[in-house]
């Protein structure tokens, strides 16, 4: 058991009595409107209560013991809407069957870090959410002590029932909820010992599962409000172009069209030009999606050149030039790499490349906005509601207190919905049209107005001495825009002479975070390179890495190494054992890789067989160390999705530009992995070490790119350096 200071500010525990609690009743907006159904659908054990008593910002309890937990963070498919409430319910000590989960709106006074990004929700919520549950439990206990007239220390809880040790007196949470909600917030609470967990560690099913499989309204695109119109935009067709003139004479008169508006988003592009590319877009507003789509096509817009119109070929040449530069400033240097390379008996040098990538969330960008002169009311899918509300306030010249954001379930994020320019556009369109609107991007708009994963190149060099040891390691990366190198990650710390460099070329193409930023490229490159080094010195690739980790553990080079060599080696050992690495099977070509990012460690083995004359992925094995696994089923799903995402993008996907124009605009030209290309089987194992939990949304993706490249080499005899690998003909059927 650990004692935790609650540290809550009063506002986060605003108490609303049942009498004054109109706000507690369900049904005041679309989101809440569907909540009544959610509640009805989710409840298996109890009827809907008459009153809800707010215990704190995260939970309310009905007089019949039903509990509503508000899940604070955006749900983009990483399953936090299930796993975060599990943390609260655990410490509250209730039956999960008595819990109903709702998405909380954005409220910076009540919640911390309402962000979906960096795989940090569970890591950050681990203590605070359990504390919220434990605090409410303590208040319920105190209320029960008053009612039962016994000392609070003699009371215990189990599954929502409070019982007295020395008598047969019991009372339920529901019966004391009203009194408990009036009790002073305790300054300290006790958290459970992990061995007493009853909900954490259980495979709890997705709380929205029923709604998802029955097609109920859940997503931003499903949102509707009375009087709402549909809006769509036209943006410049090329990066480096801007609006010159609009002829909307035809579009305006078309059936169902309310108006055409030029929307000035320069407040964004001026502040963050590498992320927000366009300073003006043209919006069409009308009654229905199809009518607006027709009018959008009927617009006659002239665009003009505002900047360089870039080509992917030029990006590539430019990056080559940067890599060839002899005087790059070191990000990290240990020992004397140049001497070690001079003294080497063998040097291996390889260059790896990857293209820009679009996020392609299956639900395209969209947002609802209802803006008046006093307030802006926004609803939709966004990973960063706080940032978005600030940007909206700026763009409207409105106090941020008057901007409200509610979050829907989100049809994928992958980093794309960190960048809420579409929220600002929706607000400005609503203001211009003087109507509530829902802005919808077509797939083409979404793909060609991206905040792309940068294109990357990296050059690796390894020096091998006459004793067949790797004596020096040199990594030099470049990206458009932003380089891919993490200078303090493995094998930094394990090699005597080490040099890391990182550069960025400028581009007018907007770029940003994409699931596991930088790692989504560098992990695969690094792990493929280490495979070649291991081969060159005649070692098993797992043994080779384990020896490096031994060195990093016993005698680390430098002080900034950002990984724990023991845990890193641990996942490699686990994947070796679980996959039966040491008993190689004929006809199965295997590759291995391990990577650390977002505070979690993942090792993977990819097995490739030949099927219909081409390599096919038979199985992927993962060993994962993310500390305590909150929800094993959800955790497995994240690892499976992450590795399929990694394989898919390494094999098939690319975004390219010609004269600034995105060359892929829909799924007929932008390839995503499909059923037939997916691994036939996946097996995932977790290290059980009782360490506080860390992220899972991203770490499953990066290493598999390396394991895949290494397995493909075994299967084809050829090393693959340039993503997407399937551009090589022998990999396609």
């Amino acid at each position: 058991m650990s004692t935790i200071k609650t540290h809550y500010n009063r506002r986060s525990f605003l108490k609303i009595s049942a009498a004054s609690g109109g706000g507690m009743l369900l049904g005041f907006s679309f989101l809440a409107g569907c909540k009544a159904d959610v509640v009805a659908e989710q409840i298996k054990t109890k009827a809907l209560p008459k009153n809800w008593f707010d215990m704190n910002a995260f939970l309310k309890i009905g007089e019949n013991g039903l509990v509503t937990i508000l899940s604070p963070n955006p749900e983009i498919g990483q399953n936090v809407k299930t796993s975060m409430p599990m943390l609260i319910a655990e410490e509250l000590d209730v039956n999960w069957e008595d819990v109903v989960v709702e998405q909380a709106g954005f409220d910076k006074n009540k919640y911390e870090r309402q962000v979906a990004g960096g795989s940090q929700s569970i890591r950050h919520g681990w203590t605070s959410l359990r504390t919220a549950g434990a605090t409410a439990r303590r208040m319920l206990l105190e209320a029960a002590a008053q009612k039962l007239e016994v000392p609070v220390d003699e009371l215990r809880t189990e599954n929502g029932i409070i019982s007295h040790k020395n008598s047969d007196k019991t009372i339920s949470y529901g019966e004391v909820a009203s009194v408990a909600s009036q009790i002073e917030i305790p300054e300290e609470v006790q958290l459970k010992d992990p061995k007493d967990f009853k909900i954490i560690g259980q495979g709890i099913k997705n709380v929205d599962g029923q709604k998802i499989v029955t097609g109920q309204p859940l997503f931003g695109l499903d949102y509707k409000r009375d009087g709402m119109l549909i809006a769509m935009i036209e943006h410049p067709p090329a990066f480096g172009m801007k609006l010159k003139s609009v002829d909307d004479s035809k579009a305006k008169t078309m059936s169902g069209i309310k108006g055409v508006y030029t929307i000035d988003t320069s407040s964004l592009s001026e502040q963050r030009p590498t992320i927000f590319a366009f300073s003006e877009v043209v919006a069409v507003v009308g009654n229905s999606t199809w009518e607006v789509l027709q009018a959008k096509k009927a617009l006659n817009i002239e665009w003009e050149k505002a900047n360089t119109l870039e080509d992917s070929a030029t990006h590539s040449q430019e990056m080559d030039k940067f890599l060839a530069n002899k005087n790059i400033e070191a990000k990290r240097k240990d020992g004397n790499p140049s001497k070690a390379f001079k003294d080497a008996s063998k040097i291996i040098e390889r260059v790896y490349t990857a293209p820009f990538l679009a996020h392609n969330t299956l639900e395209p960008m969209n947002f609802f906005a209802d803006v008046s002169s006093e307030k802006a009311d926004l609803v939709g899918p966004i990973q960063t509601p706080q940032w978005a509300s600030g940007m909206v306030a700026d763009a409207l010249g409105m106090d941020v207190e008057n901007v409200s954001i509610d979050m829907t379930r989100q049809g994928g994020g992958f980093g794309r919905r960190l960048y809420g320019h579409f929220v600002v556009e929706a607000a400005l369109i609503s203001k211009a049209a003087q109507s509530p609107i829902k802005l919808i991007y077509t797939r083409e708009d979404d793909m060609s107005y991206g905040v792309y994963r940068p294109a990357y190149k990296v050059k690796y060099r390894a020096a091998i001495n006459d004793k067949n040891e790797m004596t020096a390691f040199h990594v030099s990366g470049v990206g458009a825009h932003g380089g891919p190198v993490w200078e303090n990650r493995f094998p930094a710390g394990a090699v005597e002479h080490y040099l890391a460099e990182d550069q960025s070329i400028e581009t007018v193409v907007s770029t940003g975070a994409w699931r596991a930023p930088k790692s989504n490229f560098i992990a695969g490159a690094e792990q493929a390179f280490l495979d070649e080094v291991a081969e060159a010195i005649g070692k098993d690739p797992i043994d080779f890495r384990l020896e490096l980790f031994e060195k990093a553990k016993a005698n680390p080079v430098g002080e900034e190494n950002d990984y724990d060599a023991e845990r890193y080696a641990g996942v490699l050992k686990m994947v070796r054992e679980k996959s039966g690495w040491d008993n190689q099977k004929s006809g199965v070509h295997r590759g291995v890789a391990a990577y650390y990012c977002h505070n979690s460690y993942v090792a993977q083995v990819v097995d490739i067989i030949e099927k219909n004359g081409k390599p096919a992925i038979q199985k992927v094995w993962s060993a994962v160390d993310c500390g305590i696994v909150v929800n094993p089923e959800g955790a497995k799903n994240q690892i499976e999705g992450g590795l399929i995402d990694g394989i898919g993008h390494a094999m098939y996907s690319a975004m390219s530009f010609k004269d600034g124009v995105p060359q892929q605009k829909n799924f007929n030209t932008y390839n995503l992995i499909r059923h037939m290309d997916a691994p036939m089987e996946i097996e995932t194992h977790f290290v059980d070490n009782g360490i506080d939990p860390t992220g899972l949304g991203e770490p499953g993706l990066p290493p598999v790119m390396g394991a895949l490249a290494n397995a493909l080499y075994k299967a084809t005899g050829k090393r693959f350096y340039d993503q997407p690998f399937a551009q090589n003909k022998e990999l396609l059927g």
Partner: protein
Amino acid sequence: MAEFTINLNGKSTKVDVAPNTPLLWVLRDHLDLVGTKYGCGIAQCGACTVHIDDIAMRACTLPISQISEQKITTIEGLSENGTHPVQKAWLEHDVAQCGYCQTGQIMTAAAFLKDNANPSDDEIARAMNGNICRCGTYTRIKAAVKTAAKNQ
């Protein structure tokens, strides 16, 4: 604008829309049936899959004027309260991540299993290949289709 009467989820339903309006937008904008999703609009992703006379079709490229007497089934009409064996299998395997593609996946799987009650892994992959899951739930979908085949 023109008036159309369609046979939707077992009910005769009237809508007044332009004849070239795809069924997808008729369902979503005019009938408030939003379980049929928009993902690409060009018959590439399968998010908009519905059944037309029990055959899986892409609602995004199917103009309302081309449907006459045929029976249209959307996810909302697949079963009462999600009790179709495919929906139940989806819940059992906790397939969804973001969940956005899953109604389309379910509709494709349900039509496929009507034709092939006992499919092999390869047949499942081929039948489902037109449905993209950006979150990568493919192995769970395969397992769920097998469970549904067993239970139907």
